[in-house]
């Protein structure tokens, strides 16, 4: 080790706290990124694994509308078209409380057709006995209500071969006998099977209420056969590739995942401020040493290399820590991410958290690059240290004064670039987030000039109010502006995110509360118990529908049938709600409608003259007024439906199509009911009717009956749950910023040990020392808090009117409440004051004699 490296090594060893802060800056930034990546990736991987496991070696699938395919199609396909291999499948979600709280995917298969498709099921055909325990095939084919389970799941739940397990779909419980335990040798399949239950197709059809129907038919086709099958296809049936189908479903969560990634990047940016500050401090502190080294012949390049390499070495340790912390945090975040995906998109159960090497590599590369980028300015500063500057510690600070006009200019340019990117009419979220980051950086660049300006304004006032301490504190902040402004910028950024996200969530909540109030006008709602928050799966028993219609006290009943229907042009399924009346009684807000009145609009809808679509569908598909008709896959093939209105809807960003019930039944032949809204007669109490109906129909949990108030309450619980992940990330970003401020303040105060020693020697009491330090940190927190308010407002505006619209297609009404700003300001102030406590305590205990002597 050369002398340069020895001095560097010993210096960091003497100042372990500084080294630790640098490590923390890198570690926390990397941890945030890695954890979000792991959470996103695990949820995606779990979905992909179970989809792949079900698809097996199938290359294509025959699909139709919501009700699936007629099972006769399978016979015709083999007999008439001679397509082989082919395997019929029904699938849906069931609860199996004995096996775990997450929903399971129930897959009904034709065992005799399985061999070419799902290799882990080969055991049931007798090809290999290693994969399975039990006599799968015979009982599966011959006994009713039998299932195959993953051996791992069975073992974890203490279920053995021959045991009966209760399975519930739409509240209807059924006992199923376990006749085989699957134990694939392939680890991926083993993991995927952890949330799949297999049954014979007949059992599956019965359990999933799909008697005579198939969800899809799996095929293995080459290009030539594909063309033949397409030519043969009957009306209403589509041939899709399995990859495209799975991809389309994955794409539904793309915006959600990108939003999380952007939030995690924000933490990295705050972490970069922290690294910049620590490295800058280490350079400023070593200025005399560098001056001496330069006198002795060390070149500027050598000093540059020294700073960059020592940053690299320290940040490597930080990255390693960050990876570990990220994996740990990821396990926690994956629960939140999965819950949101389940609430908003589709059912996914994450059994294991995977840490893909690509995530780790990304964490390492981005973490190190961010650290080196942050160290660049101080390293250049070290390189430029001239031998004469040995005794001048304030060179950097005087340079900051000179770059002030440039900072203002840079802020203007960044704001303009940000504005341009946000204004750019594209649905690309990366462009929108780049714009958002540019705006944030513009605000950060303004921090130094605004801090200097405000501190100069505060000095005379502080002097009048608090005497010499009141004058010293603001001047100290300006004197070390290169570092104080960075700490303030870091805190400001984190707090502005709190303001922005709070306003966004608050506005969102306000909009949803108002919307729920308008849309849910019925007094009592009845539906099958739900697996997910926003999707109605299963049907209400007919006797319930008929029974409640004439229930005493019921004035009017409206029903809805909610199903997923493929929109071939859009390449994805969407929710179709077939209604026979307006559950909002005309109160539902509309973005646009063709007719002169809402009454007329509903008349036309119920008459089957057109459909009404939700705002997210309208926005995300880039439609304009009047919208082009939408094409849906019906039993009779693709049909075009004129759009006669666009309504506001916040249940899902996938898109909803409202359709008259008669029209729906006509095209799809499905006369089931998913939900009922009851309007009660004047003076009838809703909770009383709910109790009566529950007594009459609710036994065994077959239906869920809720009053208007309970349903709204439940909806808001789901809303709050959806944003739990955002709150968690917000908290983490604030912690990073807090450490940033603590680090900056500690460095600054410790650097001033001698000066504070002189003050103490001249009679400054401990109390006055605390006052001075807390005054300084309080002023820094105040500046950060004040700057965070307008920045946070701009951020909220961008989130509400640009990011949200482009991500999810929702229009929100911005609701500003003083509490958002006040709370954020208090966070900044308290964080800064708390960050001053340790330096004050430490300096309070200094030996004045030593401090006065120290250079």
């Amino acid at each position, binding site marked *: 080790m050369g002398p340069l490296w020895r001095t560097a090594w010993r210096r960091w060893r003497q100042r372990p706290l500084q080294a630790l802060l640098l490590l923390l800056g890198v570690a926390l930034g990397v941890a945030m990124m890695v954890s979000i990546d792991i959470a996103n990736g695990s949820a995606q991987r779990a979905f992909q694994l179970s989809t792949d496991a079900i698809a097996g070696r199938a290359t294509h699938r025959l699909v139709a509308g919501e009700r699936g395919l007629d099972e006769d199609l399978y016979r015709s396909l083999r007999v008439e078209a001679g397509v082989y291999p082919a395997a019929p499948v029904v699938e849906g979600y069931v609860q199996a409380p004995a096996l775990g709280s997450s929903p399971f995917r129930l897959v009904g298969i034709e065992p005799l057709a399985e061999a070419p498709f799902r290799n882990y099921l080969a055991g049931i055909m007798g090809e290999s006995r290693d994969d399975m325990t039990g006599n799968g095939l015979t009982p599966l084919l011959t006994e009713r209500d039998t299932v195959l389970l993953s051996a791992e799941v069975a073992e974890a739940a203490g279920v053995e071969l021959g045991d009966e397990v209760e399975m519930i779909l739409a509240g209807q419980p059924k006992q199923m006998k376990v006749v085989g335990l699957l134990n694939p040798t392939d680890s991926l399949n083993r993991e995927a099977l952890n949330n799949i239950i297999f049954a014979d197709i007949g059992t599956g059809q019965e359990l999933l209420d799909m008697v005579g129907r198939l969800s899809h038919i799996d095929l293995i086709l080459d290009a030539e056969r594909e063309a033949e099958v397409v030519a043969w296809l009957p009306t209403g049936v589509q041939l899709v590739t399995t990859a495209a189908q799975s991809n389309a479903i994955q794409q539904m969560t793309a915006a959600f995942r990108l939003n999380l990634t952007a939030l995690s990047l924000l933490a990295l940016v705050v972490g970069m401020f922290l690294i910049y500050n620590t490295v800058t401090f280490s350079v400023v502190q070593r200025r005399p040493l560098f001056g001496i080294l330069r006198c002795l012949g060390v070149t500027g390049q050598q000093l540059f290399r020294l700073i960059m390499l020592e940053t690299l070495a320290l940040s490597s340790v930080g990255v390693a820590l960050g990876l570990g912390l990220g994996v740990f945090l990821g396990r926690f975040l994956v629960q939140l991410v999965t819950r949101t995906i389940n609430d908003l998109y589709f059912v996914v159960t994450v059994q294991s958290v995977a840490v893909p090497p690509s995530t780790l590599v990304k964490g390492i590369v981005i973490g190190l690059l961010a650290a080196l980028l942050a160290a660049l300015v101080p390293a250049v500063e070290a390189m430029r240290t001239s031998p004469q500057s040995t005794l001048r510690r304030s060179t950097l600070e005087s340079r900051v004064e000179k770059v002030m006009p440039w900072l203002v200019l840079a802020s203007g340019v960044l704001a303009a670039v940000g504005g341009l990117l946000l204004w750019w009419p594209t649905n690309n979220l990366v462009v929108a987030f780049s714009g958002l980051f540019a705006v944030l950086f513009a605000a950060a660049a303004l921090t130094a000039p605004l801090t200097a300006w405000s501190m100069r304004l505060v000095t005379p006032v502080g002097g009048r109010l608090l005497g*010499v301490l009141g004058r*010293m504190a603001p001047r100290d902040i300006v004197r070390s502006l290169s570092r104080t402004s960075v700490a303030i910028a870091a805190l400001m950024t984190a707090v502005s995110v709190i303001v922005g996200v709070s306003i966004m969530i608050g506005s969102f909540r306000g909009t949803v509360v108002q919307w729920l109030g308008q849309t849910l006008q019925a007094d009592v709602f009845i539906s099958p118990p739900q697996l997910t928050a926003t999707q109605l799966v299963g049907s209400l028993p007919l006797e319930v529908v008929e029974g409640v219609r004439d229930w005493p006290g019921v004035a009017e009943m409206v029903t809805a049938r909610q199903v997923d229907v493929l929109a071939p042009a859009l390449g994805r399924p969407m929710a179709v709600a077939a209604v026979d009346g307006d559950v909002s009684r005309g109160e539902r807000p509309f973005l646009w409608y063709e007719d002169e009145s809402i009454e007329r609009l509903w008349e036309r809808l119920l008459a089957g003259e057109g459909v009404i679509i939700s705002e997210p569908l309208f926005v995300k598909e880039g439609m304009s007024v009047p919208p082009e008709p939408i094409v849906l896959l019906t039993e009779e093939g693709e049909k075009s439906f004129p759009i006669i209105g666009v309504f506001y809807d916040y249940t899902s960003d996938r898109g909803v199509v409202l359709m008259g019930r008669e029209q729906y039944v006509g095209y799809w032949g499905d006369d089931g009911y998913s939900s009922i809204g009851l309007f009660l007669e004047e003076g009838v109490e809703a909770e009383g009717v709910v109790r009566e109906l529950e007594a009459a129909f609710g036994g065994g949990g077959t239906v869920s009956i809720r009053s208007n108030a309970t349903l709204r309450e439940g909806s808001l619980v789901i809303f709050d749950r959806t944003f739990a992940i955002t709150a968690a990330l917000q908290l983490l970003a604030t912690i990073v910023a807090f450490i940033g401020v603590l680090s900056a303040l500690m460095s600054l105060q410790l650097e001033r040990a001698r000066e504070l020693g002189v003050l103490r020697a001249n009679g400054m009491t401990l109390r006055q020392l605390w006052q001075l330090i807390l005054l300084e940190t309080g002023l820094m927190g105040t500046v950060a808090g004040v700057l965070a308010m307008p920045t946070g407002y701009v951020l909220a505006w961008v989130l509400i009117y640009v990011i949200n619209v482009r991500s999810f297609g929702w229009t929100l009404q911005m609701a500003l409440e003083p509490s958002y700003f006040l709370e954020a300001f208090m966070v900044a102030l308290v964080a800064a004051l708390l960050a001053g406590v340790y330096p004050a305590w430490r300096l309070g205990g200094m030996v004045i004699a030593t401090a006065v002597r120290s250079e």
Partner: protein
Amino acid sequence: MGDEKKEVVVRLEGITKEFEEGGRTRAVLKGVDEVFYAGDFSLILGQSGSGKSTLLNLISGIDKPTAGDVVVRGEVITKMKERERTLFRRDHIGFIFQFFNLIPTLTVLENVTLPQELAGVRGGQALAKGERLLAQVGLAGREGAFPDKLSGGEQQRVAIARALAHDPMLVLADEPTGNLDVGTGDQVLELLLNLTRLMGKSLVMVTHNEALVPMADRVFDMRGGQLTLRAGAGRKQAAGEVA
């Protein structure tokens, strides 16, 4: 004039100071007993590392002895609590350091009035006194300047004004000319001696500069952890005023 007639401003009683160095204890001061008289210029000479600055720090109360007592004007400051020592220092002691140690964020005038402001004295009285002292050290008109705009000599003159601004009974100076060239150092020293004598202040100065011996009232040598009076050296000893 005999010893018993002079008022003692500082009494050192068996002062010992030890430092821990790499797991070993090193005694810098070994049972020092001495007195300093009011109005005197006491000079302590010694080589670097002999413990003379340590002794000054103990007298001011910014450091505590391992054993022994420091009594200033009858008050045992080594028995005082930290806050009491600070307040005592603020009211009764003025400090001048080798490296000037001005506060960079305070103007020249604010540096001078600092001890008074810390004591809660504000406004006209403190400012007027500060301005008068600055005029006395030849820095009239520079009140609003910040320390980094001053030369080394000017900075030390501000430090002298600061040390006298709150009318202390005792001024402690640690190598006040050690960081200045000879010419400037002499000017600063002359100013310091004139002002302390004019204002009747006791001055204890540590240095290794033998040239100051003729100007001091009494001269001490710090050697081997002991403080010894140099016989016949210093103005008062030469004149036979004190033993």
